[in-house]
């Protein structure tokens, strides 16, 4: 499923999007020696998960999430660049300005593949807005230099509406790494996994539960008109 690439750029707005969304694919790329760079839009400063018991507050959360992001990127062995936007506000920024900002990185890195969220099918307004800006950025590049773009949809209905994803990547074999990356996001993970994580749950039971839900990383190959 994973082909040879020159350089892969992952573009998501929040620390932890990379771990839940693409950690398995990133691991596969890195195992082949392919460089991967994460452009992380915000520091998730408006997140409401503060750990349980709480380890963060509104003012310490960005510092804590930045450290968690660096730890996860270290586990996944990928570079990270922080774009410096404020959580929850991406959809109110000027789309073109954000796209040009992203394009600066793409022009420098010259990736062969970009991974981002599928606009309108990514649940969180920041996901939709940054996905749209990333697609606009890639669309602005000259066709000869333009990377392939994989868009990730996560709404409940994406399958019915958009059809079968072009890329259905089974990352079961990379689940240990993926779980390790997810667990770097300590302040968030309890809240996000609370639906199926019980206190004191054995690590391998938790792993099975996470594997059940996050072992497929699916993407649509974006079609640019012209």
């Amino acid at each position, binding site marked *: 499923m994973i082909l040879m690439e020159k350089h892969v750029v992952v573009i998501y707005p929040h620390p932890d999007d990379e771990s839940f969304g693409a950690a398995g694919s990133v691991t596969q790329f890195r195992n082949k020696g392919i460089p991967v760079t994460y452009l992380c839009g915000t520091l998730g400063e408006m997140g409401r998960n503060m750990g349980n018991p709480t380890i963060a507050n509104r003012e310490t959360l960005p510092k804590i999430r930045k450290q968690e992001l660096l730890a996860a990127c270290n586990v996944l062995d990928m570079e990270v660049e922080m774009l410096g936007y404020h959580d929850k506000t991406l959809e109110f920024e000027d789309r073109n300005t954000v796209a040009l900002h992203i394009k600066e990185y793409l022009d420098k890195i010259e990736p062969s593949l970009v991974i981002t969220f599928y606009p309108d099918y990514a649940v969180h307004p920041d996901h939709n807005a940054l996905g749209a800006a990333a697609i606009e950025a890639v669309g602005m590049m000259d066709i000869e230099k333009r990377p392939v773009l994989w868009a990730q949809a996560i709404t409940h209905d994406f399958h019915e509406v958009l059809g079968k994803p072009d890329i259905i990547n089974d990352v079961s074999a990379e689940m240990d790494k993926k779980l390790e990356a997810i667990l770097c996001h300590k302040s968030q993970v*309890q809240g996000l996994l609370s639906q199926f994580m019980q206190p004191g749950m054995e690590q391998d039971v938790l792993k099975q539960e996470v594997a059940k839900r996050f072992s497929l990383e699916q993407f649509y190959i974006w079609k640019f008109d012209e």
Partner: protein
Amino acid sequence: MKPVNITEVQTVLEQYMNKTVYVHLETTNGAYASHVNQNAYNVGAFIRNAEVKFTNAKIVGSNGTYRVGLKLEMGWIYAEGITDWTITDDDQLLLAGHDREGRLMVALQVSNHPFRY
């Protein structure tokens, strides 16, 4: 943060009275509320670094959950559901309400200098 001590919080609030201060006020039920539960609504609001001056400040409540009202020259600032508080190293008063899972539901913060933006 620690559970609200009403006397201590009242004392701190009064230190911010009658001078220009910066306020962060927020309520949220998360961006995934209606994704997790179809019948839920996504609601939330925040204002960061509102520059205000209040003439009265009071924290009221019992059993671990509190309301705070700040009286402005031309209006009010109000927060309900406050459970915890702390003062940062920067001397900023943080008040917040958390649910059983430790998730923030409401925040009211006051500072003599702007919050990081």
